[in-house]
């Protein structure tokens, strides 16, 4: 699958990279859905012999392909929340020299990068590569609730039901973009939804 080029945006919007080979003493891969392709592209037998892959399938069937790479450790879970305790445990055992590779959706990369930095992984040891869905994890600035996998703008908050406009303002701490009520002045006057990047 070809990679999506995010249009230029404001400064707070995160910039994702492309995996490169790094020296390290341990290698942790956390990916969701098509993020598996980024691992497959960089995998070598040597690297996989030292790799721990945590894969969130989100309904895809990439797990078999990843297993075929023969990583030293492999975990598969259905969602980020299901994998979180595993991610936290692996990071709490991590030592200096670990290299962390995050690939897939912005939601996965943002949240996992937060866990890694909280655990003390140096920023320079964390790599990212966006693959697959460009849907966003959004936080409603009014009720503070998170809505995952938002693909259209505007959209309806899954918690308070307000009609929300998708902004590019991003909070690293929350790993989410900000969503603001679009019809506060004139309730019910909501423009038709279109894709975020349309």
């Amino acid at each position: 699958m070809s990679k999506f080029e995010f249009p230029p945006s404001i400064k707070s919007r995160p910039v994702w990279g492309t995996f490169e080979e790094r020296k390290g003493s341990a290698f942790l891969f956390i990916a969701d859905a098509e993020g598996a392709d980024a691992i497959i592209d960089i995998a070598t037998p040597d690297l996989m012999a030292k790799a721990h892959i945590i894969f969130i399938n989100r309904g895809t069937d990439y797990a078999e392909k990843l297993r075929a790479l023969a990583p030293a450790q492999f975990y598969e879970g259905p969602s980020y929340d299901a994998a979180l305790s595993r991610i936290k445990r692996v990071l709490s055992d991590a030592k200096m020299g670990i290299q962390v590779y995050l690939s897939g959706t912005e939601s996965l990369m943002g949240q996992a990068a937060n866990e890694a930095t909280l655990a003390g992984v140096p920023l320079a040891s964390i790599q990212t590569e966006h693959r697959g869905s460009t849907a966003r994890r959004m936080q409603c600035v009014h009720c503070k609730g998170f809505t995952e996998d938002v693909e259209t703008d505007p959209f309806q908050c899954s918690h308070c039901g307000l009609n929300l406009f998708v902004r590019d303002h991003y909070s690293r701490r929350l790993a989410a973009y900000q969503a603001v009520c679009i019809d506060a002045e004139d309730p019910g006057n909501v423009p038709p939804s279109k894709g975020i990047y349309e």
Partner: protein
Amino acid sequence: MSAPQKAKAGPEEIPVIVSAVVPVTDHVTRFEFTRSDGADFPPFSGGAHTVVSMKDEGRTRLNPYSLMSDPADLSTYAISVRREDDGRGGSLFMHTKVSQGDAMTITYPVTLFSVDQRAKKHVFFAGGIGITPFLSMIGQLEHSNGNWELHYAARTPESAVYADMLLMKFPTKVSVYYSGKGDRIPFGTLLEGQPLGTHTYVCGPARFTEHLRDTATQKGWPASHIHSEEFTAPAPGEPFTVRLCKSDKTITVGEHESLLEAIEREKIDAPFMCRGGSCGQCETRVVSANGEFIHRDHWLDESDAESGTKIMPCVSRFIGSKLELDL
């Protein structure tokens, strides 16, 4: 109207009295200073250095030394000087001509090497006299309950300055390795298994420093977590002639002096801080040159060094028919 007064180019100086001269080993002597005006010294962070000015038969030597005293005690600054018999003379001067009660001047402390306050743990590697900056860093960390360990390589127990004191005060944090007995610091093993957020620091001979840097990089430590004290003492070389355009002077740099020292000898005020090629302070623009630069600093990046448009006079030299500097 009078011209604005030009600030002196080097760091500000402090007149001091040598309050103690203490032989530590055959080759190393500790010098302690108090301020001539009786006041306290300025605060400094562990790992900082001072430049000691030595009046040696008409010439002034300026040598940088790490402050090894406890940063919490500002009544005294202390340095330890290793006598280099084949050196350029500064350490010999300190060893043979300086005694208790002498008046000298030293500069305000300059911090180019210090503990990273964000680190969860600090792992120090010292080779020989490279132990000195760690002594003040340890002093600082002990006051703030910092988590540290030290691995110290020396040739023999007799030459291992301050090893006894360190082993006695911190038996669980300090390990000493004697190369004379074939003991080497196992860099790789020691870097493995360090908790996230650990920073590592090295000071010692160039090859020792390189070895630690290479090993840590191989093990996946990011450059932001590897720190080294990269002083280069100026090395002797073929004399060369240089024209200083602004001062309208042509001078010759002798075999045993640095370009910076030659400039100072001519009473031209040139900027400096570390005198060891690492701070960037002395960077000077080359107006024109015909010849080859011998860059020995850790400051200029490759493209700057290759461009032939910049030179660090504290450690770098030149071979060729013409060199003109913007000084």
